């Protein structure tokens, strides 16, 4: 019924971005990818970038491509992969939100004419991935001054995964207690979940053990 952005609009917007990203050269690889779920295989832009280029790319996205919203910045720890032990994934959105127009001191709410939008107005999803080789102190540039929404995402990523962000002001623990030991970042893979191991089930720390007569009989 035309009350949604259709796949064609999204695809052409995504392709535009991918062709423009080529200006950055080898440091930035972009491709159009598709969601695989559901009825609609929406396109989104997938960009691989080196950490050093990330800030530049972010500024370009913000300024020329009107990418105005940072949805999530998160990190993954791949301890078995020496080339890319640390991965930072950023999800950005282009929302096209503007302040409502003011005419004659009267505010007029914005209702987007969805069929008519094109170019930089089309809402679009971005997935941006960067990898860092094996290091004790992983770090990527911060984009918290470009999108303020990245501020607490970066705090959380440092708090839980341990990836630091250069240039981030006021980095601190957000979800873990403030007095957590330095270097303790629970989402790193060396911290194993003791729990939910199938064999440990009967040695419940809370005391609900195996029935005495069942020992040896029930696995």
């Amino acid at each position, binding site marked *: 019924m035309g009350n949604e952005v259709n796949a064609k609009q999204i695809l052409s917007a995504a392709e535009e971005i991918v062709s423009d990203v080529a200006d950055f050269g080898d440091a930035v690889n972009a491709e159009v990818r598709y969601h695989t779920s559901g009825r609609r295989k929406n396109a989104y832009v997938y960009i691989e970038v080196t950490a050093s280029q990330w800030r530049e790319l972010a500024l370009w996205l913000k300024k020329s491509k009107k990418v105005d919203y940072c949805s999530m910045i998160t990190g993954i720890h791949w301890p078995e992969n020496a080339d890319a032990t640390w991965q930072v994934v950023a999800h950005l959105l282009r929302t096209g939100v503007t302040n409502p127009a003011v005419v004659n001191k009267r505010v007029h709410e914005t209702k987007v004419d969805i069929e008519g939008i094109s170019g930089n107005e089309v809402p679009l999803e971005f997935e941006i991935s960067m990898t860092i080789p094996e290091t004790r102190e992983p770090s990527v540039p911060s984009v918290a001054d470009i999108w303020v929404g990245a501020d607490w995402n970066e705090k959380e990523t440092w708090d839980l995964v341990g990836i630091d962000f250069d240039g981030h002001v006021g980095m601190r623990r957000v979800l873990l207690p403030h007095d957590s030991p330095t270097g303790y970042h629970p989402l790193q893979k060396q911290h194993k979940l003791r*729990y*939910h191991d*199938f064999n440990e*089930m*009967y040695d*419940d720390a*809370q*005391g*609900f053990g*195996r*029935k005495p*007569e*069942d020992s040896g*009989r*029930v*696995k």
Partner: protein
Amino acid sequence: MAYHKHATPNFRNLIVRPMWITLKAALRTFPIIGRSKFLQSHGTSKPYHGQEANLLSDAEREMYTAQAHPVIGQKYAPDRETTELFPHFERPVTVMYPYERLEEMEPWLFVPGNYNGRIGVIWETCTACKACVRICPNDCLHMETETRVNVLDMTEEGDENHGFGVELEVGGMAARRLEGSEEAAANFQLSTAHEAPPEEYEFGEVINLTGDTISVRWNASGTVEDVAAGEVVGAEVDIVSGRIDLGRCMFCGLCMESCPFNSFFMTNEYDGMSGFTREDLWFEADRTRVLPVQHAEAVDIELAKRADQARKKAEKAAAKAAKSEA
């Protein structure tokens, strides 16, 4: 969207309007006055408050009529529980649990199998496949050994699925139906009893298996008794599911869905799962047991399935035997 058309701070809205709407709400709760026309709506809409609504589809109406369920004689408004005095008196919103229970007033909320209450396992059909234990996100479900009768042994003589059960043998287990147990099982209120269901069988060890009589040493009394062959059926010590740490259960119902043998249920019991200590929440398997009569349909399906398998197996074995003989 436009604003509400009266939303300006002025004298009218200072006290008159809010006090008017609260007065209306208050007057609605009084008998007889509350039925007056001007209280049934607000603004320009059609009357909506206290309007009778049909909340039962035809299929449900038929079903509840067949059960002679009290819900049939009751009238409903969409947001109110029912009362027989509906036209002039509205009941207080409090449901006086445990004297009144919601499932008597709105039974559609508690359709067995659709409601995630305490878990329940039919021992007779459980095969100890551990699918439920594996799917449990919290590791709260355990297996346990219990003496039980196989579902195939539950058939009466003459039933088409009869005769595939456990063979009686010396040193094996035998079971005898307790007197009055069928009645007790049928009267057992699964969701309000808060205790283990009544024992249906007594179990014993087969000592002698010659002729028409079988000597059994009953586990409970320790006495040896000769009983007629038709009186006892085979039994076995088996692993069944259903031992649970309810303190960790989050009632997600994945165990019920994972069960491939129609043996695992979420019952309608929502009370009786509390205690003063953590240990009170550790339920042995007999507490979560569901008697076959409670879910006779599921048991029958499973029984037919198993009997079919056994029949095929027997046929195959017979064919094989015939082949080898030939």
